[in-house]
């Protein structure tokens, strides 16, 4: 495992931590450019309305206002937040581009209608109030069921019955004959579930600083997670060649997938163009809750059929995906639920479908787990329901049906490694499954334990482009610059990549300088999503380091009079394996290569453009112990165990941090985060932390993170993804624990005390 590594597997502190701990770290919101103006956006107060007239004259006359824009001030080119009209998929674009930079028609409360740039925040704020917009309100639909009714008002004219698209699973998941499979099954469970919206709630709100130079080149400071694809999208939106755009990524105050999309960046750039000055546009918390992506909500009908020995025999999922006023990432989020669900367990008969439905509500995008937390909310509860009907321990039912290495993964590729069984067994032992599960419960306050399991992905091959690049070069003192652009959402990816590079080069992680954050300076990297950075960018880094290592060994071989394959590098020394005292330092080699007067000048370096043709699925199991107060319906999570098969943990401290953070988000998703849209007005009522409650210190359970730490054959040093697995199965584990405690099951997120109490009363009323 990782005992043989020098740097990989170590709990190394992060290079950016000092800047963050001292206030020196600059995020997009902290940036200031000379002559910079402040931007603000005017949003629609109506869920659906024609814009009849916009009178900006008063705003423009206010002293200090330097630009007021509407859609007519932008190149009216349709785009989509998911960048799907880029060649992101092997099969080409399949998503409709349906939004302009500023709306031509209001399609949700919050839709950006106009924007201003002014000398300071006070003036920009005043200017917003001076823009007069004449709206004609239109009928609107606020949920997919109303939206799909014949005769419902259309959000977009092209989408009949507001169905943007009807999706089916990829061919490898349309298997067998589901009708026959269900008929053959001894136990069939069919249930409906609702997985709600969740707000990313990254503490740094959506932000952008944009400036246009004298040559018309755009510099865009943005926290967007996918800098290179974002640059391409900007090029399309603004009719500019990509080379005339530089996306710079400062420190980012959290992303969680919400920032896969750009949000107010195009507006900021449009303002900078109109004003011919740099502009900074930062959203308020209320705007973040209502005008950018949230996690996509879905309704699921899940049907699973089992043989009496617990073998899963037939499985269908129907997903109704609740998109907002524009598609954003709802389409892919919906379609992929079919893969997460149908591709997790072994099953000979599978099929499904997904309808993605427009509504006049806030945008549904990508958030950590991208549909897996949502559909697992459904499927992992159905597993428990079936286990009860089968008279089986839910643990045994999972173990009966999980996949192993070699079997087709949820992406249809051979599973490179899977230690899901270990995850389940070790987690069960640590929570005390045998002692605590299924016991007779008494008293007002009752405890229970529950679990869930999952399979995810390391990157999105073969569905989406998987391409990352890395350059590494040695400085003359033996330190190295690692030029990469994975983003910096706070996941410690720079540290992980440094450890990978340092391990390969035989130097120390602190010898690596990360050079990053500029699309001009870095090779293409898709960016951070789908838990891909360690696995894909990590492999690019590994191979770039390997190339540099080769050059070091070549040069050392000449100096030491041996052949390169007799050498290795450790602790900054290149040494002869059979005679380690014969050595030369990396620093000396690097210096000699640069300040070389023998005609052998070289910057020792390596470069790799890597396309991942594999996708090693991480797996995990989650165990919750809860305490339910049967008089108040309150659910307290006492202990939570996250048991992770993420291959080799390059930095166990980082992996733990991801999983501990995931528990906060999972408990919020499962129990407390309720996104409330007013049914009469379409206004989001939960628009700040006062109204939308996410867990604080006092709401967290005791946690334990188990890292199985068995290497994957394809990941760099055996690593797989872990960022999203840190969250996926938390909510259903809690739901299953509640059932164990008090015998009620809530199918709609979040599981509030009100719902639990109502279910308990219904249960006892039925019994009486």
């Amino acid at each position: 495992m990782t005992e043989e590594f020098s740097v990989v597997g170590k709990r190394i502190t992060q290079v950016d931590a000092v800047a963050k701990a001292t206030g020196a770290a600059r995020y997009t919101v902290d940036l200031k450019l000379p002559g910079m103006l402040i931007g603000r956006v005017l949003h629609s107060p109506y869920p659906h309305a024609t814009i009849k007239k916009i009178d900006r004259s008063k705003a423009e006359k206010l002293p200090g206002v330097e630009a007021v824009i509407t859609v007519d001030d932008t190149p009216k080119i349709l785009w989509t937040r998911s960048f799907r009209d880029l060649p992101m998929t092997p099969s080409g674009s399949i998503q409709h581009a349906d939004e302009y930079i500023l709306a031509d028609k209001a399609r949700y409360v919050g839709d950006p209608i106009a924007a201003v740039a002014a000398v300071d925040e006070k003036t920009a704020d005043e200017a917003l109030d001076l823009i007069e917009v004449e709206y004609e309100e239109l009928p609107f639909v606020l949920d997919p069921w109303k939206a799909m009714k014949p005769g419902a008002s259309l959000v977009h004219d092209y989408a009949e019955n507001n169905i943007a698209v009807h999706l089916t699973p990829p061919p490898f998941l349309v298997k067998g004959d589901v009708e026959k499979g269900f008929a053959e099954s001894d136990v069939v469970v069919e249930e409906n579930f609702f997985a709600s919206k969740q707000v990313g709630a990254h503490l740094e709100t959506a932000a952008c600083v944009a400036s246009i130079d004298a040559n018309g080149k755009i510099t865009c400071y943005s926290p967007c997670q996918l800098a290179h694809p974002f640059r391409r999208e900007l090029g399309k939106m603004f009719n500019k060649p990509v080379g005339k755009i530089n996306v710079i990524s400062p420190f980012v105050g959290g992303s969680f997938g919400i920032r896969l999309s750009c949000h107010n960046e195009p507006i900021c750039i449009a303002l900078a163009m109109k004003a011919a000055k740099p502009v900074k546009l930062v959203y308020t918390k209320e705007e973040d809750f209502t005008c950018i992506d949230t996690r996509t909500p879905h309704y699921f009908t899940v049907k699973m059929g089992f043989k009496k020995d617990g073998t899963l025999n037939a499985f269908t999922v129907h997903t109704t995906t609740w998109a907002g006023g524009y598609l954003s990432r709802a389409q892919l989020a919906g379609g992929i639920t079919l893969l997460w669900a149908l591709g997790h367990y072994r099953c000979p008969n599978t099929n499904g479908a997904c309808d993605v439905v427009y509504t006049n509500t806030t945008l549904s995008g990508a958030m950590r787990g991208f549909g897996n937390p949502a559909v697992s909310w459904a499927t992992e509860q159905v597993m428990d329901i079936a286990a009860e009907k089968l008279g089986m321990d839910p643990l045994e039912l999972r173990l009966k049906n999980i996949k192993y290495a070699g079997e087709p993964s949820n992406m249809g590729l051979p599973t490179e490694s899977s230690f899901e069984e270990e995850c389940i067994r070790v987690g069960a032992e640590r929570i005390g499954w045998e002692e605590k599960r299924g016991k007779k419960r008494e008293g007002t306050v009752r405890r229970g334990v529950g679990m869930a399991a999952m399979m995810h992905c390391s990157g999105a091959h073969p569905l989406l482009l998987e391409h990352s690049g890395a350059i590494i070069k040695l400085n003359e003192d033996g330190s190295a610059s690692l030029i990469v652009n994975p983003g910096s959402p706070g996941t410690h990816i720079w540290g992980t990549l440094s450890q990978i590079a340092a391990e390969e080069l035989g130097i120390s992680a602190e010898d690596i300088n990360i050079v990053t954050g500029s699309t001009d300076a870095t090779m293409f990297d898709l960016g951070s999503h789908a838990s891909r950075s360690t696995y894909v960018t990590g492999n690019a880094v590994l191979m770039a380091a390997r190339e540099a290592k080769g050059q070091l060994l070549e040069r050392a071989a000449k100096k030491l009079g041996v052949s390169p394959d007799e050498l290795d590098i450790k602790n900054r020394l290149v040494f002869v394996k059979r005679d380690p005292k014969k050595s030369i330092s990396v620093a000396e080699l690097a210096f000699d290569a640069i300040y070389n007067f023998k005609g052998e000048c070289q910057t020792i370096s390596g470069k790799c453009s890597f396309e991942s043709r594999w996708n090693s699925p991480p797996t995990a199991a989650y165990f919750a112990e809860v305490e339910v107060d049967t008089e108040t319906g309150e659910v307290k999570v006492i202990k939570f165990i996250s048991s992770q098969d993420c291959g080799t943990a390059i930095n166990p401290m980082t992996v733990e941090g991801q999983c501990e953070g995931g528990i906060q988000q999972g408990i919020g998703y499962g129990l407390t985060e309720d996104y409330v849209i007013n049914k009469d007005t379409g206004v989001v009522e939960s628009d700040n932390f006062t109204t939308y409650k996410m867990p604080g210190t006092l709401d967290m359970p005791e946690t334990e993170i188990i890292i199985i730490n068995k290497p994957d054959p394809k990941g760099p040093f055996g690593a797989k993804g872990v960022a999203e697995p840190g969250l996926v199965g938390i909510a259903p584990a809690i739901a299953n624990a509640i059932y164990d405690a008090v015998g009620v099951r809530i199918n709609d997120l979040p599981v509030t005390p009100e719902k639990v109490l109502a279910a308990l009363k219904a249960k006892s009323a039925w019994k009486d």
Partner: protein
Amino acid sequence: MTRPLKPFDYFEPTTIKEAVQILGRYGTKAKLLAGGVDLVARMRRRQIQPQYVVSILRIPGLDYIHSDEAGLSFGALATIRSIELSPIVKNDYTVLNEAASQIASVQVKTMGTAVGNLCVATPASDIATALYALGAKLRIAGPAGERTIPVEDFFVGVNQTVLEPGEIVTEVMLPSPAPQTGGAFFKLVRTAADIAKVNVAVSLTVTDNTCREARIVLGSVAPTVIRATQAEEALRSSTLEPKVVEEVAQLAAGKAKPITDLRSTIEYRREMVRVLVRRAVKKALTRAKA
């Protein structure tokens, strides 16, 4: 970013008299600033937009917590945090300590004053709920002089008090608790740092197994904090058995007029009044007898 506040004229009187004068002059166009937690947050959301802000922060001698045989009093600038940390409040006015402790944010408690919290007049106020249970009185200074009213007479509706233009609450006074008095405070929230869905405060004085005095106070289930007077009556004339406690809780639930909002529902709130009153009465009894 955060929205800039709209401009206002700002005053920093150094005496109560001066503060009363300025507030009186500007009436409803003026707002008083103490901790500012609620004022600034609501100004930012444009829920209130005063043209004049009158800070009492520079008036000396208002942050005291004072205790003697007559009881406890604290001034307009006594912070919620200082009340939480006060040993006397903890020992003798437990309900108030529990209410203050269950406000989660240390920063909010450090900035926020108990009097300021009262003057916001939200029916979900933990402090108000506790002060009703403790029989608090408020001293009010105004253009017409000074008056003292029971805290229960202070609230008129949501965010509405009886304060006339120019009036300032300068002090809260609590009577010394009678022997064999016990109290308890409960609140239900979504996460720990949240405004109550329901809050309940009970204070009982027990002599010879009979309840002599009872205050059963319900927060968040009416336009103001209310007392469940029928329930109190039932408790006072009872023998304090569990069955009676259950009936008392039921009566209290009947007094509640909750709404459904984003925090909770009518049905749940009403049911929780019953549950929390039962729990609070039981706990208060145990403490009273101790």
